[in-house]
């Protein structure tokens, strides 16, 4: 199957001479149709620049981006949908005409643009705001409108930069449903976010960028597997934080309500943790060795790199 996106050793620097800065350094990745790639990394790592190169908003200094197996041409633009991180719309303009204009720029005929904009507003529960000015909308509503602008033309490649920031839980769920539908329709998705739980929930593969370079890339299991069995799930009476001696073995205890997740210190043997729990606490009803949470992987990689 031809990849929707294939980035091959792309590099980008800004400025020149001493003030020049290499922002993206030899980054390669691909996304297949129907696949969701999570792009994670600390602020300033080069994620947005890499995304902009995929969309041909800026051009790489070296390397190549192939879209659907061929170098970028203007014919690819209608197949791209983009929700940028720093968002905004024409504040003095009304919602529906704004969506119609952005749809028309993606090649939709006037009536098609109107119909698809109307359908997206309906799907996102925003139909009653079609005649409102953007300035009158809340931040979350405005974000839904921009998501509509990104996918109303049914693109084959959707690039979303922090799509969940500023949304309430109800709208987070709504956006997830809509993105699942987009994916089911065969669109490839690049999802850049700092919310690791969303990556774990939605992405097939994850790529971590730090200082412009790819530092981790693979399926979620592959990425977490690189760090060994770094955590444990425990169901027990009482709180693991109160167990004497455990603080030397466990870096962090995450309370999930009915169970606790113990993030082990690097090099800790899981049997020793089990022994400590058994000797110093009440009944342990469940004990599972698990991979390190993605968030912990992220923190360790970033700390290690820095």
């Amino acid at each position, binding site marked *: 199957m031809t990849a929707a996106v294939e980035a091959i050793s792309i590099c980008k620097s*800004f400025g*020149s001479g001493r003030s020049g800065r290499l922002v993206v350094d030899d980054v390669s990745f691909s996304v297949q149709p129907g696949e969701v790639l999570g792009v994670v990394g600390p602020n300033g790592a080069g994620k947005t620049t890499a995304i*902009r190169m995929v*969309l*041909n*908003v*800026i*051009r790489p200094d070296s390397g190549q981006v192939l879209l659907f197996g061929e170098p970028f041409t*203007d014919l690819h*633009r209608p197949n*791209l949908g*983009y929700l*940028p991180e*720093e*968002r*905004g*719309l*024409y*504040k003095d*303009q009304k919602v529906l005409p704004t969506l119609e*204009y*952005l749809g*028309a*720029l*993606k*090649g939709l*005929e*006037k009536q098609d643009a109107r119909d698809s904009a109307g359908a997206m507003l309906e799907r996102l529960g925003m139909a009653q705001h079609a005649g409102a000015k953007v300035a009158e909308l809340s931040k979350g509503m405005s974000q839904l409108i*921009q998501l509509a*602008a*990104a996918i109303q033309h049914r693109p084959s490649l959707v690039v979303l930069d922090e799509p969940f920031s500023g949304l309430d839980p109800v709208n987070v769920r709504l956006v997830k449903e809509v993105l699942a539908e987009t994916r089911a329709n065969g669109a490839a998705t690049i999802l850049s976010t700092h919310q690791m739980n969303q990556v774990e929930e939605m992405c097939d593969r994850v790529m971590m960028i730090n200082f412009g370079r790819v530092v981790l890339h693979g399926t979620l299991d592959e990425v977490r597997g690189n760090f060994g069995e770094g955590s444990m799930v425990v169901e027990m009476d009482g709180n693991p934080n109160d167990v004497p001696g455990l603080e030397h073995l466990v870096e962090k205890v995450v309370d999930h309500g009915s169970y606790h997740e113990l993030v082990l210190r690097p090099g800790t043997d899981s049997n020793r943790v089990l022994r400590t729990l058994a000797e110093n606490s009440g009944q342990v009803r469940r004990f599972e060795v698990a991979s390190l949470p993605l968030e912990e992987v992220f923190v360790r990689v970033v700390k290690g790199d820095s």
Partner: protein
Amino acid sequence: MNPIATIAAHELTVTLRRRIFQVVTVALPLIAFVVVAIIGAVQGSDDDPSEVRAGYIDMTGLFTEFRAQEPVQFILFDDPEQAIEALLNEGVDRLFIIPHDYMATGVVQRYEVSQGIDVNGSSGDAALKSFLLDNLAAGELEATTVERLKNPLSLSNVRLDEEGVIRDFDGGRLLFFMVLGILLFISLTFSGGFLIQGLGEEKENRIMEVLLSSVTPGQLLVGKILGIGAAGLSQIVIWVVAGLVVIQVASSLLPDVNLSVPNPGLIAIGLAAFLLGYLLFATILAGLGSITSSAKESQQLSVVVTLPSLIPVYGMTFIISHPDTLATRFLTFFPITAPIALMVRLGPGSLEPWEIATSLGILALSVAIMLLAVPKVFRAYLLMYGKRPGPRELWRTVIRS
């Protein structure tokens, strides 16, 4: 629809809906109508003959005939007391006394009741002179000689070029192109302002990234320039149509003023200068808009272009009186000053055909160069915020990409 057409239609709609655009478009013709109406009203009141009655006392006995002098009716008084009483009772509007020694001194005393400004003063004076002349010349000179004595000079200017060929001079044409030049500047200022304001807003509200993922920087630039240009052009069409109506009205109200419309060839040259000027300014301003972080900063920077473009207006007297100097030619050929310099020089008809061709050619070439260069600057800097690139960095961007 083609993306350029989509962007142009959007920009046209947005610009036409701007309140300031609507106000300026309507206000200028209205002001012109009001000015013409006021001038017409003042002239009309000058021409009203029924209002003016002038009494006079003639101590020389020479001025007894020709008392009806439009718009003044002269009424002879023998008794000074009756004359003063008539003036105070408004039987007459003013009173003249022609003393015994008038023939030696030429002095005539005028008495008026103080009521502020006398709008009939100048026509009243002309009527008095005519009255005196008619009486002095009666029986001595022929009527045509007397008429010529009253209006001895009607100056008609004829200008020759260096070869001795008559260069036509037309005050109406001078006025037409002067007004067109001013309109060009106003329209450029507003259209350019809208362009960089729009770009600044799109940078500030970050919708620029979405636009650039949908269209090329070149399409965005051309679409914006065409859309806002169409709005500017519709503004100019409204002004020109209103101007033609004003000229018609003014011609009927002010028959003494020569207000003719220049021939279509000259208007075409003026419009070509106008369109090329707009394209050049809009492209440069768009480039400036792309390298700044906000609409406010863009507008401050745009002064670098708009102020020098006005040099031909500051130096209008010099340009008209010294058409063959190096400075005048430089202003005619330098792209930034060329559009308005052309307007200023089309008025007095001091332009040679080769000068027009060279100036328009340089303008067209400059527009083409800017249309090639600015999209590169657009692509490089539209998504950058913070430090503004210097001229050297801009040059490198244009050359490299």
